[in-house]
């Protein structure tokens, strides 16, 4: 009974799958401080590896082609930074100067609404207490944002140094490392191991390329939209909307927050601006769902929406923003590994069962 349970394909698959998941989870915990640069480097590797291959085919050595790709990456990064950073920082500082006005307008609106509710319900409450509470909360949020902002600058500097180095070594050595690792598989699982690896690699590569293109298109569309309706800092808002679009379902909702706040911060408050800001995001979403997703990332992942939402919440809770971004590729990878293992193990089990002599 116990022996048949141990040999059953489902229990064997679950055992191997749990082992693989444990190893990956342990690695993620050990490498937690480096997780973000590693993820970004892998994303860049997926995009840049084909370029390195072209160089190699034209006679460059692996070292020279990896170095050339790294130089191209640094050059493009430097060019983008020199072109975009001054523009971005001016928009950021204008946003910073606007935020107190936004808070004041929102607080005044909140006070009006609370006064209205209190008077219509006939309650006796000190509205100044509410306002004070709100301001102290806002003050706390502001302090936290400042501390997080300075931490973000430090993290960004580390990223700028680590990502090119990691990407270089990935382009140069990842293939050899992967080959030596997969060649260690026993003869009986060798083909299955490679098959699962290629399915995972292809799906991840398609997904990463897809979401990068999708994010870029969303940034451009929303920037144009915000600029057209006359909202301040359109470029910055577009960039934020593009980055937040990396998170399925939840991202577009989060992307609405900042434009709505800014539209509310206009004095006097123009409600059409709030509607226009929401419309820009909704139109961008429409373009995304009707044109971009079907043509760019339709086949990249095939997960149930409920799995996606639960995954985003769980991963977001565990690893923050980056967890929300990596939730889909991680779940999809686990899905392929599990079903690949199950298919292979079940085939072997059925063969063994059929070849057993009848007694």
């Amino acid at each position, binding site marked *: 009974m116990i022996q048949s349970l141990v040999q059953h394909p489902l229990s064997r698959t679950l055992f191997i799958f749990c082992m693989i998941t444990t190893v990956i989870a342990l690695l993620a915990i050990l490498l937690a401080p480096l997780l973000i640069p590693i993820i970004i480097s892998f994303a860049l590797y997926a995009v840049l590896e084909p370029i390195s*291959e072209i160089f190699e*085919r034209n006679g460059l050595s692996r070292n020279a082609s990896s170095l050339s790709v790294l130089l191209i990456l640094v050059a493009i990064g430097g060019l983008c930074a020199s072109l975009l950073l001054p523009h971005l920082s001016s928009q950021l500082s204008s946003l910073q100067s606007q935020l107190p006005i936004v808070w004041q307008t929102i607080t005044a609106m909140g006070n009006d609404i609370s006064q209205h509710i209190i008077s219509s319900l006939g309650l006796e409450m000190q509205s100044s207490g509410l306002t004070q509470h709100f301001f102290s909360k806002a003050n706390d949020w502001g302090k936290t944002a400042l501390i997080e902002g300075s931490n973000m600058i430090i993290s960004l500097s580390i990223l700028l140094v680590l990502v090119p180095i990691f990407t270089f070594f990935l382009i140069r050595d990842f293939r050899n490392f992967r*080959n030596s690792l997969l*060649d260690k598989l026993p*003869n*009986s699982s*060798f*083909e*299955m191991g*490679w*098959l699962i690896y*290629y399915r995972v690699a*292809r799906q991840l590569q398609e997904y990463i390329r897809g979401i990068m293109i999708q994010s870029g298109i969303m940034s451009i569309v929303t920037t144009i939209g915000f600029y057209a309706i006359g909202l301040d800092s359109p470029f910055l808002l577009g960039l934020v909307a593009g980055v937040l679009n990396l998170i399925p379902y939840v991202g577009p909702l989060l992307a609405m927050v900042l434009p709505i706040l800014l539209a509310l911060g206009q004095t006097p408050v123009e409600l059409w601006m709030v509607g226009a800001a929401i419309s820009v995001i909704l139109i961008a979403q429409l373009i995304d769902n009707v044109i971009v997703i079907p043509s760019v990332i339709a086949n990249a992942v095939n997960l149930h929406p409920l799995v996606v939402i639960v995954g985003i919440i769980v991963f977001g809770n565990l690893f923050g923003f980056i967890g929300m971004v990596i939730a889909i590729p991680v779940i999809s990878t686990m899905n392929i590994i599990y079903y690949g293992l199950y*298919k*292979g193990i079940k*085939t*072997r089990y*059925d*063969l063994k069962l059929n070849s057993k002599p009848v007694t």
Partner: protein
Amino acid sequence: MSSQHPLWQNLFRHKEDRTSEVTDMWMTTPLFDKISRRECRDLVKTMHPRHYKKGEIVFNSGDIGASIVLIRSGGIEIKAAEKLLAELMVGDFFGEVALIIDEPRTADAITCEDSELIFFLRSDLEEWVKRSPKSGAQFMLNIASVLAARLRHTNILLSLQNS
């Protein structure tokens, strides 16, 4: 200096010799007909050599197949329903159907002596076809010819059996 060092020389020579030898073996098969030696050599570098003991199963009928296999040393028996279909020797290849379709293996392959086998994976073929579409198309034509010849052979055998 490093290229003169015997350790480095031996390390690289061993690998180079193996690549050249496997390239020569593939070039004598109909699969690499009208494909340049350079292209074949580049492809051989992506292939996977594996060592098998005598009597070890390479694959069973029904297993997931993902590659074509070349025998570098040793020998293989191909069986279906315990019936011996073919005995393969050094330089022969088998499992070519798995290179084209994602279907289970249709026969068993067992080593009849200690063997070194070279696996050419479908995923590597797909990447090569993307990189070199012209040679990739020629390879596909060659593999189609091999499969057509096998089909013709099987049809003749079946008609002989029936008559």
